[in-house]
């Protein structure tokens, strides 16, 4: 008997209302459909009525978590359009801000993933260390989120020299903790049993659905915009792209955790090498034409296309956020999985995600029953408990708690 489980579509707290219609046979998932945009904010349309300087603030609000990725992608696009070369110091500042954001975004994701599978200690700890990064942002830019640091032709604010030491100190504090998280994930038999082989994405499917970012990299596709389309200061520092082969939820977690270490490396080098000089150049009038800007956001490639008609407002702005191409790959990954794994597979691509808050189960038209996010979480937690009990005694010392 086939049953359809709609997950979504919205809740007052959501950033991205979306609806997944999951078709199940018993416990097994056989199909999934996606629908979104209940909260369409017409940002592309709005951008046509704002000046280039205002659009940066507008696109900063596309996403609350990666709030510097969209401004950087937009600035890249306009700088490509008008052939603007930004000063060296601005490049380093952009890199530092973008990498700090990647750290806090990945820690946020790691904490949520822990929460979804019933590892509340992971959740508390990851978010505790995310707080360090947010506080650092407050010192650098004045805001914990939506930093307003970017500007066409450079950056709006400088990073002061007295802040360098705090940045380095925070990195020193974070690094051992991230190493601890990595050890905890790779050594814990319960986590391995819960995450390994779940929601597998094959390389062919990753190409077919055009996935980007950590999702593609976990499936063995070597793509990173920071290396392939060097912007900011990424071609001036030494770092490497993390690629895993398995494509399951565990690989996605490992990619993200290892990326935090790379980000720490990049930030340290940027602070050390930071050149003196201006942080922005004078921007000429934007000529008619078109420009493409790409940026590696924490979730993957962020794409902006800008068309100018010579006025001070863009004629068209096309934004493609990374989740837009990462979410459709669920159609390959869900088939054959269990209902208890829905929540962690959905979470594994890190879509700005908090949409399981309302859920309704329809039993073949015979009746309706409303489930909440709690029910989904309960299913997931129970599965972890079962595995935990199975492992009880044999490797207790290795468990995180």
């Amino acid at each position: 008997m086939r049953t359809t489980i709609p997950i979504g579509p919205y809740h007052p707290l959501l950033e991205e209302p979306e609806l997944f219609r999951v078709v199940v046979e018993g416990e097994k998932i056989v199909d999934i459909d996606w629908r979104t945009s209940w909260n369409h904010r017409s940002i592309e349309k709005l951008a046509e009525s704002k000046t280039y300087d205002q659009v940066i603030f507008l696109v900063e609000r596309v996403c609350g978590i990666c709030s510097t990725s969209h401004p950087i992608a937009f600035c890249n696009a306009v700088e490509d359009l008008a052939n603007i070369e930004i000063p060296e110091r601005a490049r380093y500042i952009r890199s530092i801000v973008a990498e700090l954001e990647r750290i806090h975004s990945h820690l946020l994701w790691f904490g949520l993933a822990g929460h979804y599978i019933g590892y509340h200690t992971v959740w508390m700890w990851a978010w505790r260390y995310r707080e360090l990064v947010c506080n650092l942002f407050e010192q650098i830019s004045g805001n914990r989120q939506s930093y307003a640091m970017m500007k066409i032709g450079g950056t709006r604010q400088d990073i002061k020299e007295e802040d360098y030491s705090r940045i380095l100190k925070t990195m020193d504090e974070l690094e051992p903790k991230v190493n601890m998280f990595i050890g905890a994930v790779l050594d814990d038999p319960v986590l391995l049993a819960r995450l390994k082989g779940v929601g597998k994405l094959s390389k062919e499917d990753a190409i077919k659905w055009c996935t980007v970012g950590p999702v593609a990299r976990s499936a063995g596709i070597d793509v990173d915009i920071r290396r392939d389309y060097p912007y900011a200061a990424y071609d001036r520092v030494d770092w490497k792209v993390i690629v895993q082969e398995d494509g399951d939820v565990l690989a996605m977690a490992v990619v993200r955790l290892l990326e935090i270490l790379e980000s720490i490396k990049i930030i340290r080098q940027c602070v050390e090498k930071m050149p003196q000089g201006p942080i922005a150049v004078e921007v000429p009038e934007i000529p008619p034409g078109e420009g493409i800007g790409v940026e590696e956001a924490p979730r993957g490639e962020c794409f902006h296309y800008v068309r100018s008609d010579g006025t001070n407002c863009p004629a068209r702005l096309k934004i493609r956020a990374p989740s837009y191409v990462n979410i459709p790959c669920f159609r390959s990954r869900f088939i054959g999985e269990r209902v208890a794994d829905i929540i962690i597979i959905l979470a594994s691509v890190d879509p700005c995600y908090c949409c399981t808050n309302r859920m309704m189960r329809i039993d073949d038209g015979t009746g309706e029953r409303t489930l909440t996010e709690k029910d989904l979480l309960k299913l997931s937690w129970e599965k972890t408990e079962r595995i935990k009990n199975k492992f009880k005694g044999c490797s207790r010392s290795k468990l995180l708690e």
Partner: protein
Amino acid sequence: MAELNLVQKVKEKFPDKMRELWEKSPRRIYVTVGKEDAKDVVRYLFGDLGARFITMTALDTRQGIEMLYHFSFDALGKIVSVRTFVPMPFPEIETVSLIIPGAEYIEREIYDILGVNFRNHPNLKRFILGDDWPEGEYPLRREHKGQFPYRTEEEQGLYRKHISKKGEK
């Protein structure tokens, strides 16, 4: 090697289909083709040359709906955009989502906001506009006034009445 050949390869493969080839910068290439040939060029770039499909952009211009298929050659660090024009008033073009499944949703989005009909699309339904959005209203077309007709005249009247009552108190 491949870097040198990329532009030439496309040129040689489609000698008479290419209307314009513009290398804006070493990393940005724009190719203009006819509407009927877009699918072949897309198939060649995605299937044969192994490019990654980024997304599609559609704009309403004086020459009709302008469509851009953006492809990324990550190893070379080049973005190739295939441009084509779909004439108004009944824009219609062959779908590419049978070649690239990842293009299915962006085609549905363009169908929603600009009313382009994608022939042979597997599931051409509303994607981002609400189910109560009126038929034939395309918010990103040039003639659209930017008014969002969510309510009927009657409902708007009731709403205005409600507002004015509030003011009296």
